[in-house]
């Protein structure tokens, strides 16, 4: 009975301010989506980063038949490979060394580019250099020491710092994430202001009713509740839209990233649900608290 009355009031309130309510819902939706997208980015990057942490840091590419490097005089010999390998293994900075033959390299290459045959068709097995994949004890710290130990040595074509390449990649992603989060925060501020304005307008529109309610002795809670719920409901509607958008972001954008990696970097359903739940909590808290504070200022009780 009483809840009936409250819902009626909420409905009337939302309808009277329809344009403002719609604006509010849209802004909340966009800001929550952006916040959620930023979070999804963070999770995605972390997911790929964790994989790479366990992988190679330095690749020592060995001379092969068609090497362009003047240091190389034909393909690397087994003796040279063994001596390089033991030299590396003896260094305290090196955790382990793995030898990748030409055949193995070709197989890995084909697997990495299964989705893009153009990369595979232009090359053949003999174009793949054999390599020594080195894992360091302290990633990133001792690159120079280890690299200089083998650069220019017999049979070494080039020494590549894998971490450096990835570093640039991750810095780009981080930059993107920061940009998204900053825009999201700006929108969150806009959302707060919009909620405050909408509630204030709503309270003003209904001042006749609230005036009578006060005179007649309705409890303060009863008077404020419809307005509070208006704000929260608009926030929830915005959140539903945001959740849909986030699901879209995950399935369309992020799942497409998978094709560039030959291992699983996809975010799990748990990750997505986590982000969506967080978005809801933020959305509802934002709208609820702002509504409450606005009411205290503009609704005389």
């Amino acid at each position, binding site marked *: 009975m*009483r809840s009936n*009355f409250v819902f009626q009031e909420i409905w009337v309130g939302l309808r009277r301010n329809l344009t403002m309510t719609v604006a509010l819902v849209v802004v909340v939706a966009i800001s929550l989506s952006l916040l959620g997208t930023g979070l999804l980015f963070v999770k995605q990057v972390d997911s790929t980063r964790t994989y790479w942490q366990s992988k190679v840091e330095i690749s020592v590419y060995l001379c092969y038949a068609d090497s362009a490097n003047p240091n190389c005089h034909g393909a690397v010999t087994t003796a040279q490979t063994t001596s390089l390998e033991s030299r590396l293994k003896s260094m305290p900075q090196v955790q382990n060394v793995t030898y990748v033959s030409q055949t193995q390299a070709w197989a890995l290459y084909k697997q990495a580019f299964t989705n893009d045959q153009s990369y595979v068709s232009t090359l053949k097995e003999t174009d793949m250099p054999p390599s020594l994949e080195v894992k360091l004890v302290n990633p990133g710290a001792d690159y120079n020491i280890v690299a200089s130990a083998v650069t220019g040595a017999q049979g070494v074509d080039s020494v590549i710092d894998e971490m450096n390449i990835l570093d640039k990649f991750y810095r780009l992603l981080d930059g993107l994430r920061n940009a998204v989060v900053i825009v999201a925060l700006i929108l969150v501020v806009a959302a707060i202001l919009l909620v405050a304005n909408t509630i204030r307008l709503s309270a003003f529109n209904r001042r*006749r*009713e609230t005036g009578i309610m006060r*005179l*007649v002795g309705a*409890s303060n809670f*009863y*008077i404020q509740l419809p307005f509070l719920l208006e704000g929260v409901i608009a926030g929830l509607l915005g959140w539903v839209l945001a959740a849909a958008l986030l699901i879209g972001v995950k399935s369309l954008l992020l799942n497409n990233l998978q094709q560039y990696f030959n291992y699983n970097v996809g975010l799990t359903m748990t990750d997505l649900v986590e982000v969506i739940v967080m978005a809801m909590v933020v959305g509802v808290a934002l709208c609820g608290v702002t509504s409450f504070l606005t009411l205290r200022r503009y609704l005389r009780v």
Partner: protein
Amino acid sequence: MTINKGEFVFLVGPSGSGKSSFLRLILREERPNDGRILVAGNDLARLTNWKVPAMRRKIGCVFQDFRLLPNKTVEQNVAFALEVIGKPRRFIKRVVPEVLDLVGLDGKHDRMPDELSGGEQQRVAMARAFVNRPMILLADEPTGNIDPATSIGIMKVLDRINRTGTTVVMATHDAAIVDSMRKRVIELEYGKVVRDQNRGVYGQAY
């Protein structure tokens, strides 16, 4: 100064003498600078903010500008007062027609306020004020916007309400009504009580 249960009191005085403020103090819309106000035994100064609504339910209010909700029918306007304090619908359905009958508006329950005359609108306001059977009815110049002939009808309703045991305090400029009803008259001037007379007349106050 004491107003006892069941009394009918006219509050007279020139504009600005404090008649409306008097009523607002009773409702706790304003706080006094000093002195004590006791309404139905409650000391208003000691009343916490969240207890005020409960006290206001014992008081009904009628105003010069009627203060009806323009988008609701007569019936809905009166029912509103009960809905907002959480009365069940069955109770409302029973009580509203009764009170509309009491003020003489039976048959007009589904009209909108703009379809009613001033006198009828004021009767709706009185029905709304009285529907919860308050102990006290405060009226702030209820006949201010109404012609003298219709005012008599309004006063009859107020009298009827008073006879049910409700204390009525009415601020007014209407000398004719005060003189004809001969109830207790309290006269205010510049915020001070200058006359308190049983079966009084309007006197010189303009």
